[in-house]
């Protein structure tokens, strides 16, 4: 194939789309007039594309749209159910973790915390012991709340699950309180420990 023909072949796609600049289009048309091979090739390309475009399309079945609507409604309903189930599982898990953390914190850290604070024998420590007593006063209701939450979640009641999600800040507060108490206890132990001799 001559060099000119190679260049013309490269332009055929754009020429077919009518996307050539006027000067390029004129040069392209001029070459086709003088070159029967390129003309044949270009016409064959155009004819093949025309055949492809004109090939009959498959007709949708008469119930196509109705079937799509039926499937879409079913899929939407399934999606809503899944979303509810997801929020329910999340709420249940949050309630269980929060209740567990409250009980664990009370049993494990509570007595040590009080002992450590008493050992400090300072007004601040005494105030924290008072805070702990208040905390204990709420600990029993918190445990009961955990049990109720667990029962409601098990029952699968949607309103209960949503209520638990709404109570998430309260759980977060419980976590923060436990963490703060633990840190105070650790600081107390560090202060009470004798200095380490390196000699």
């Amino acid at each position, binding site marked *: 194939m001559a060099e000119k023909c190679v260049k013309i072949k490269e332009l055929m*796609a754009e020429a077919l789309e009518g996307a050539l600049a006027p000067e390029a289009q004129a040069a392209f048309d001029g070459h086709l007039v003088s070159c029967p091979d390129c003309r044949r090739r270009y016409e064959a390309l155009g004819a093949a594309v025309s055949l492809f475009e004109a090939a009959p399309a498959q007709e949708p079945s008469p119930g196509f749209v109705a079937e799509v*609507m039926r499937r879409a409604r079913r899929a939407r309903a399934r999606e809503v159910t899944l979303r509810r189930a997801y929020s329910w599982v999340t709420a249940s898990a949050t309630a269980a973790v929060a209740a567990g953390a409250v009980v664990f914190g009370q049993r494990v850290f509570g007595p040590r915390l009080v002992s450590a604070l008493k050992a400090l024998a300072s007004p601040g420590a005494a105030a924290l012991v008072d805070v702990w007593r208040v905390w204990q006063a709420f600990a029993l209701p918190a445990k009961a709340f955990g049990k109720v939450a667990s029962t409601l979640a098990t029952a699968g009641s949607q309103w209960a699950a949503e209520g638990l999600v709404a109570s998430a800040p309260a759980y977060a507060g419980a976590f923060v309180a436990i963490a703060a108490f633990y840190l105070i206890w650790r600081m107390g132990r560090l202060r009470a420990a004798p200095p380490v001799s390196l000699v």
Partner: protein
Amino acid sequence: METVSSLDSPESENGLARRAAAGEEAAFEELVGRYSRPILDYCRRLVGDATAAEDLAQEVFVKFYLALSSFDPSRAVSPFLYRIAHNHCMDWLRKKKVPTVPLVWEDEDGGAREVEAPDSSLAPDALFERAEVARAIDEALASLPPTYRSALIMRHRQGLTYEEIAEALDTPLGTVKARIHRGREKLQQKLAKYV
């Protein structure tokens, strides 16, 4: 050629998509009505299986329905819809074994259903040639990688612009042009004796 995007202004389609996303079923139904033929044709040409195509096209619309909440109304509907169609058909092509097209099958009631007969008003020779051309087109498409096939169908069967195709396939514009060019050449080779 199916040219939905050229028949309906993007604004009206976007309005329908917005209303459909807001839960208006009639708007979604209208969109399905407008796009059912081109999307079915796209699926049919891409997977090369008439039986599977109808099911695939319906699934495409269901996915479209569920994805409407993430649709940006400032953009055209067709690239968004064709992207879903492309991805869904590509998934099918990856999973499929050997496609078979039954000529007669039983419907849910146990009665026999037949494939729609071709237009009998055509002369036998013309019918034969039309079937031959259709087969040659299918062969040409089948000989192309699916991504090339997809771009070629979108351009020459669905009338999408290069930019819309690039958006639908998430592919650079130059790559799209090259794929369409390559696809046309393959078509030309396969259809040489009919043109």
